[in-house]
Structure formats: structure tokens, C-alpha cells
């Protein structure tokens, strides 16, 4: 058994990381932190997951969110999608494996992947609304958030959601408040089968390797770890029985990366745009300096008077 997360302490504890440990801050720069924290990660072993939704209810309870009671819409996903009040969601997919002719019920816990190269942060226009700590946690800072929804467009996993109440973006914080006092995320603490475990990223990779070995021994030849390099790796990783086909798991992207559209928008457009505008203004200024204004001359006025007078005389 993976060592369980300890019980929380009720004595006031200083947080173990803070502003000083930021390695990225949206729409702004941060000084390089004095030291690199050990990277943490959450490992979700899909092959152990029983789809019980304990992670969802623990998440609601810990984060004091208030999702609405909805309706049954023909599927087990409830709420039907991530919401500003539901940071994580079990997604269920029934798949007839054509090789074995066995039904497989592939259940995946969806939520923020805490990418090493976070698209949300890259897209965010509000300074300090999205931050990344050197331990890998990508967090939203609500008082800086302007609610533009650019993070949604930036995210390769379609995770953040904008609240209709306070118009700021919400997503999994990896329970930064718990991790800051030496705890693990509420979902990992709750997960009945330890399908979710939490520790350092290296340790998670090691644990995943063992799980992959077990799965291979049970006939899942393509079992593997999902830690997509396209986003620089993630701090939430999956063990998949069919790592060659992640899209089977309710559309987990096979090779996620920040969309080229977003890269274009936040890369070349951003700089080229300002350049174009600057050049336009500069050219105007230059033109004015060289050519000077285009003034109406006395002669022009006289010509106009001649033209109109002739006409008015005629009328009179």
C-alpha cells in the first residue's frame, strides 16, 4: 500500500511555499526563486479507479463549493461537466475491446493536470491571476482574475470554468492550501482504492512503473504512464491500461499541447501586433516631420470663392 496521507494538524502552521516560490506568474515576470522546491505530483491509476466519485465529494467538501442539484441526463457524469463549483469529474466510457471482446468500463478522473508548461497561464492577460510554483502547482489567484476566459482557450485539457457568481476562473488547486501545510490533496486522501496517490513527481513515476508492470502481467500490453511531453509533462499523471489510446478515456488528448492558435495569438500576434501599430504611428509621425501638414492655401480659398460666387451670381 502506498503510505497513506497523514491526518491534518489543527495547530497553525506556516505554509511551506509562497509567493517566493513562483516560477511563473501570468502577464508578468517573477524573479527566479532562490531555491527549487521538490516537484510534487498526483498519480491517478485508472486501472484501480472504481468511479465512486469520492474525489468529487471530497473536493466539494474541502473547497466549500456549492454545485447545483441537476437532473439525470442519461449518463453517470454528474454534474454533466466540470463547473466553477466542481473542480474534478469522473468521466465514464463503455468500450468493447475489439481484441478481447470484453467490455471495459474506462473511468477517468478529469481535472487540472498542472502542466509544467501551462497553457492557461500563457493565455492569461491579467498579471498574477495564474501562478506556478516551483513544486509544479498551477494555481488561480481570484482577486487578480478578470474573468476573461482566456485560460479556457489556453488549456489543452479544457479544464477551467468561469463562475457566473464572481466571474473568475476556477479549477483544481491541487489543494495548495493542504500541500502548503504538508498534506496531500483532499481527493487523494479520500480515494478509497488509492487510485489517486500523491507525492513527489519522481516517486509517482516510480510507483507508476510498478503499476504498469502489474497491468502488463494481467494482459494489458500497452499499459503505461500518461505524462505528456507536449505540455512539458504534468503534475497530475495517469496510469492507463491502454496508454497507446488515451482518447478512449473520454477523450483524453493523445498528444496534448497548447493549441497552435493560442501559441500564435499569445506569441507572434502579441508582438507583431504591437509592432505593426508602433510602426504605423511612427510612419505617420515621420511623414509629418518630413512632409509637414497639408494646408489649405489662400489660393484654394479664392478658387472656391470664384467657383461659388459665379454660381450665386447666376442664381441671383
Amino acid at each position, binding site marked *: *500500500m502506498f503510505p497513506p496521507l497523514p491526518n491534518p494538524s489543527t495547530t497553525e502552521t506556516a505554509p511551506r511555499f509562497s509567493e517566493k516560490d513562483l516560477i511563473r506568474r501570468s502577464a508578468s515576470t517573477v524573479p527566479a526563486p532562490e531555491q527549487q522546491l521538490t516537484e510534487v505530483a498526483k498519480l491517478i491509476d485508472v486501472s484501480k479507479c472504481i468511479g*465512486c466519485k469520492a474525489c468529487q*465529494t471530497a473536493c466539494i467538501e474541502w473547497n466549500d463549493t456549492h454545485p447545483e*442539484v441537476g437532473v439525470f441526463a442519461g449518463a453517470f457524469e454528474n454534474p454533466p461537466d466540470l463547473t466553477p463549483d466542481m473542480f474534478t469529474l469522473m468521466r465514464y466510457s463503455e468500450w468493447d475491446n475489439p481484441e478481447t471482446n470484453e467490455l471495459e*468500463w474506462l473511468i477517468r478522473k478529469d481535472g487540472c493536470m498542472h502542466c509544467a508548461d501551462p497553457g492557461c497561464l500563457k493565455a492569461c492577460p491579467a498579471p498574477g491571476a495564474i501562478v506556478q510554483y516551483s513544486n509544479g502547482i498551477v494555481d488561480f489567484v481570484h482577486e487578480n482574475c478578470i474573468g476573461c476566459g482566456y485560460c479556457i482557450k489556453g488549456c489543452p485539457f479544457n479544464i477551467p470554468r468561469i463562475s457566473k457568481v464572481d466571474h473568475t476562473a476556477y479549477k483544481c488547486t491541487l489543494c495548495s492550501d493542504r500541500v502548503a501545510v504538508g498534506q496531500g490533496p483532499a481527493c487523494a486522501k479520500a480515494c478509497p*482504492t488509492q487510485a489517486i496517490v500523491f507525492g513527489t513527481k519522481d516517486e509517482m513515476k516510480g510507483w507508476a512503473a510498478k503499476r504498469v508492470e502489474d497491468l502488463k502481467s494481467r494482459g494489458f500490453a500497452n499499459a503505461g504512464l500518461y505524462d505528456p511531453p507536449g505540455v512539458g509533462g504534468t503534475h497530475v499523471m495517469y496510469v492507463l491500461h491502454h496508454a497507446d489510446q488515451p482518447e478512449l478515456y473520454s477523450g483524453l488528448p493523445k498528444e496534448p499541447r497548447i493549441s497552435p492558435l493560442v501559441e500564435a495569438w499569445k506569441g507572434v500576434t502579441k508582438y507583431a501586433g504591437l509592432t505593426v501599430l508602433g510602426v504605423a504611428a511612427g510612419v505617420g509621425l515621420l511623414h509629418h516631420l518630413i512632409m509637414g501638414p497639408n494646408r489649405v492655401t489662400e489660393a484654394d480659398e479664392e478658387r472656391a470663392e470664384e467657383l461659388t460666387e459665379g454660381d450665386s451670381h447666376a442664381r441671383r
Partner: protein
Amino acid sequence: MTNSWTDIRNTDLVVIMGGNAAEAHPCGFKWVTEAKANRGAKLIVIDPRFTRSASVSDLYAPIRQGTDIAFLLGLINYCIQKDKVQWDYVKAFTNAAYVVKQGFTYQDGLFSGYDEAKRDYDKSSWDYDIGPDGFAVVDETLANPRCVWNLLKKHVAVYTPEMVERICGTPKDRFLKVAAMVAETSSPTKAMTSMYALGWTQHSKGSQNIRAMAMLQLVLGNIGIRGGGMNALRGHSNIQGLTDLGLMSNLLPGYLTLPTQKEPDLAAYMSTRGFKPLRPNQLSYWQNYKKFFVSFQKSMWGSAATPENDFAYDYLPKLDLPGYDLLRAFELMHQGKVNGYFCQGFNPLQAAPNKKKVIESLSKLKFLVIMDPLDTETGRFWENHGPYNDVDPSQIQTEVYQLPSTCFAEDDGSLVNSGRWLQWHWAGGTPPGKAKRDTWIMAQLYLHLKELYTKEGGAFPDPIIKLNWPYADPGDPKAEELAQEINGRALARVTDTADPTKVLAEAGKLLPAFAALRDDGSTACGCWIYSGCFNENGNNMARRDTTDPDDAGFYSKWAFSWPANRRILYNRASADRTGKPWDPSRKVIAWDGQKWSGYDVPDIAPTAKPDQVGPFIMNPEGVSRLFTRGMMRDGPFPAHYEPFESPIVNPVAPKVRGNPAARVFEGDMAQFAEAASKEFPYAATSYRLTEHFHFWTKHVIVNAVMQPEFFVEISEQLAAEKGIVKGGWVRVWSKRGSVVAKAMVTKRIKPLICDGKTIHIVGIPLHWGFTGAAKKGFGPNMLTPFVGDANIETPEYKAFLVNIEPAPGPAA
């Protein structure tokens, strides 16, 4: 559970059948995933639905609900045919070699002695040959054709893989895969654990479902060992405790039974209970029955229970019927024979079968008292909630009291988990409003009643007035006081029977364990099997030491496990006839030549010689029973019976309908659909979902979010046939009622071919009602039949017939 949740880590093979552990007991199921991850254990799930348990299984086999016995006897037949039997275990620890009386027969689905009019058996032929020495006749060679083993072999022979497929709809190749994996555990070094719950109990032959698996486990030698056992997952947090404490019509605490009216005095009562051994040297622990009974009477009536009045024997009510269970209670209510009814944390309007009958029954009461932390449907049965509770309040004359009680977070006390651990908990919050602890409510009620009887007299006031009520504040007994009363106290000095100089307990002191109980009135004990839970060492239920030598999974210093802090029942059977563990890596206890010792408290006397005293000390034989004599109402062996509402006629006994010994009330038979009914062609089953707990969590907003609304599950094939769409509304109806629900169309339910016929399954989860935070909804109990198991009257919720069609939404 014979074992504990933490012991499941020691298994090699988990069979989940008649339950859905991943979904209903997720945190216990952890130990299955641990066994899989660490030991390479395999998981087999056998269920009509591809459940969440199945989603992480190594092998899933579909089965038609209500056909488990055919499947299990098929497995026993396979093991016998393939000689996959742990012979040493079977010969030493079961009654395989016992010779059965002439006259016992089984033919056409019926055992000898059947009386069709009474729907009951004369069980006199279901017994052993008793020799002139008073002991049962045994043929160790198993040559006698009338020995249990040979009778069993003959009895299960019909359940071939082909017959299993015909009855259960499980494809033969898949059944054989299961059988091969199960049979492997007949090795002394392999263990299989059976995890089951209401999927087995809620049938008209529920007890026999469980017996069939228990027999298989005995054949494989998997009882009493680490990683083995029969593990009833149980439903609610203290259903084990409430049953242990005898809160049933026919029980006294500790599985003692209430007297019947055929037993006018204590001597008559005891004559059928203190079983004498059926084999030499056996303990036959029930010989101590009188000690338990007298100590219980002393705890009830204290000094009013004397040898002269048979220890207040007459203060106990005497039964005229086998029992007044839930179903009979509602039947009597329906007949207008019950005037008052109390529901303490129980919501029968939702939980009992045939809701229409339940509403009619409650409407006939003069008064109904609800004690509950939550606003239950039962408390509001008189209130109109449109189609969900279509009643006219003005026509209902029942006076209803709704008394707010505290919940777990607001009281101290102990609960018993399925592994028989008594765990203490502490109050952490102030009750809301004027809510009161149940102990306060019961004490106040008692004091009011006592006062009325003291003042006014009335019908036989003695047992009320003289009830032992020794609490510091009689109006508010403390949990510790009650726990000590349950544990028991010496009323006079108790000494060791073998060595009178050794004092076990001084007068007034708490008893160390049930071994100190006496039948002369010198001890009082509320529930003998719990004795030791709160003794002079303190509150053992509150122990929190997590040491577990060698990671064996016992946690013997955590809380208290009944009986005598034993963690694995029948643990003597983990060692062979000489006392050596069958599998040294799975040692529980071992005989060192002088005594038994090991990780657990031995199930037999520590000095009982291994070759003499059998491991099953509660049985007079000292061994376990493949043939159960007259202990069960419906046969000494399980046999396949169809549910009362069945989509096919019983292939092995076409003339028998349902379980022939199950009780059916007059009028209810007419409310069952006929076998292979055209009007109700689909096999329905009801069940729980992991997001909810019974009818409670619909009051919890977060859980209501997780599964907000009532739905039914059907296969893609049935949906296509009926034009039902995912998320669309359907009407489902049985011969007893009709519900409207949304449809879940899924690959996880597939049609089965049984007896050449395609059987579609309709799954109906049960969590919705008309109070709470979730959407209002009907439950399956609008549809379920009013019939229970032949032995314990658990209603047949798991197998009945319905029809289904697309429909507009509910009218309201």
C-alpha cells in the same frame, strides 16, 4: 464476516457475487485492490450487471438474478468432478463422513417431508444416524452411500456447466473459466474469499445462496484461514450490532432465542437449547446457553430475576409464530391488527416491498412514532406528494409523532462493523435545535410509561416497573453505563470453576469475558458475545493501538472484536489435524504441543488437543456442516428455485414455483406475475449506487448532486427494441405498481439466453423518494413483491418481473 476487511489483503482470489463491494463498500474494497496489487490476486465478479466492481475485475461473468445456487452448486459439482477438493480439510473439518438417516430424499425439487398446504417441511428425516452411544454415525472412508459427501455429490450432479448456462444464462466457457480459477484454491496454500451482501440475501432463498458458497468454501478448505472466509459485507453501520443485540422479534441478545408458547417454563425452554455434543470430546459451546440466558435476565430485571421465578422467565413474551418480522408486521397492520408503530431510524415506506400495501397499512394505524435525524418519507406517508405519494390526508386518521434524534456526530457509543469490530466513537458536535439522543428518548419514554403503570396499574406491569434501570441519571443513561451493562458485571464473587481459589471477578466488578458468566444468578450480562468489550481494563472498544505484527492484518489491539476479541472465526481450521498451519505463510494460530497460540485469539480452548476437539465449537459435531440437518426451513442442501416471479419455468423442478418453503401471505400470491409471463417479460432487480447511501444521502446536497434523479438501467438491445432513448422517460410497471423514471441505456447490461429464451434485465436503483435534496422520484418498492426468504424473511427485492415502455415524464 468470518474474517475482517483488513484480512482481505491476504487472499489470492476474490469472488464478488451477490454483492458489489466496489460500489457499496468502497473503502473495504481497498483491500481487494491491495491484494491484487501486492499479491497478484485475481478478482472475479459474477453479477447480472457489469458493475463498478466488475470494472476492475480480472474476469466478469454475467448471471441471471436469482440463479446463484445453480451457479454455486455447479462450481461444487465441478470441483468434485475434477477432484479439486481440499480432502484433508473436508475429511477433518466437515460432516462429509456423517451418515444421514434413511428416509431423507430429494426429488423433483423437494426434500422429504414436504407439506404443500403448510408450505413447510417435516424435517425429522433431515438428520444423522445416531449410534447406540448417542453420537452421530461416521464413515471416515466416505464409502457409505448415505454419507453426506455421497449425498452431496449426487445432489449437485445435475448442475453441469450446460445446466448452469441454461439456468443462469452464463455462457459455458465463461463459467468454466470461473470454475477453473475457483478450483485452484482447493490447494492448502491458496485462499479464496467470498464477498457478498444483499445481492444474495434479498431472495426468497437468500440464506441458501449463502450456504451454497459456504459449502463451496468448505470443499476448498477456505474457511478459518487468512484471506479466506465467508464475508458478508453487511449493509448499514450497525446492522451487525442490532442483530447481535437481538433487536428482532424472535431473538434475545447474543443469538439466544425468545421462548415460544410451547415452552411454559425455563426447564422446557432449556431442553431444546443446551446442545449435547454429537461426537466425543467436542465442546458444543451452546452447552453454556443457560449461563448466557440467566445473565441476560439478570441484566434485564436485576434482583427481580431469581432462581425461584425461573429468573423472571415469565417477564419475557412468548412467541406463537416463528417471528413478527417486518413483512408480517405490515401484513398484520394491513389487516388492521396493529394500532401503534415506532420507527427508530428506519424508513419502511421506502424500504419495504410493495409500497402501496405499506401506505394502506400505515393508514390503518392509530399512532405512528418516528424517531429520526432526518425527515423521512414514512413520517410523511399521510402527506400528498403528487404521483410520488398520492394520498388524501383527510382520509388518514393516524396520529403521527416526529421526534428529532441526534446523528452519529452528536453521540458517544459503539457500532459493530461487518468484521465484528466494536468501535467506539465520540460526539463532536452540538445537536441541532431540540434534537435528542435516542438513549434519552427511550429512557424518557420508559419513565413516562413506568410512571403511568406505577400510578394506574394495568396489564401485567411487573416487567415494566421492575426493569433494571441502574443509571446515574435515569432520564439520560450514558453510553458508558449501557456499554458496561452489555459487558456484564459480577453480582457476587465469581471464581474459576476448575480452581475456586482463583477469583475471576469480585462482586460489583465488570466481568473480564463471557467465560466468567454463571447460570446461578451471580452474573449479569446484557449480551454474552460482547462480554469483554468494557471490562476492568477499560473500554476496549475505544482502543486505538494500530500494531499489527508481521502485517498479518489482525490489528488485535484496535477496538474489540466479538467474540473474545477474535478476528478470524473458526481460526482453528487454519491448521491441519495436528495443529500445523495448512500454509505457514498464512498462519493464524498453531499448536505448539501444549497450547494454541499465534496472531489471533484461538477459537477453541487454548489447551484443546488438535486431534480431539473440532474447530467448529458452536456445532455439537465440532465440524462444519455440508449437510445442515434441520437447521434451515427449506432444506439441508441448497437447491435451485426460481424467484417467485421468474422469466422462465424452473428447468430442474418445473412443478415448483419459487422457494416451496417460503412464507406467502394470503392474497400476495395473486399479486405475483406467473412464470414466463408475457405481460411482464423482463427480469428486474433493485440495487444501490455508490453515490448514495440508502435513503439517507438524498438529504445530503453533495450526494444529491452526484446522482440527482431516479433512473433505470437497460441494455442497448432492449432500448432499441422498445424505442427508448438515453436520458428519456420510461414507465416501468409490475403487477403491483408503476413508476416513471429516466432511462440509462448501457452496454453494461446485456440480454442473457436462459433455457433458450432471451432475457432482458431492467436495473432499478433505489435511492429516491419525496423528501430530501435530490429530485423527487419513485423507488423500486412500488414494484417489488411482498415475499421473503424462507428462513429470515428478507424480501425478494433482487428478482421480479416488470414491463417497460417509453413514456412522457411524471404528471406532477
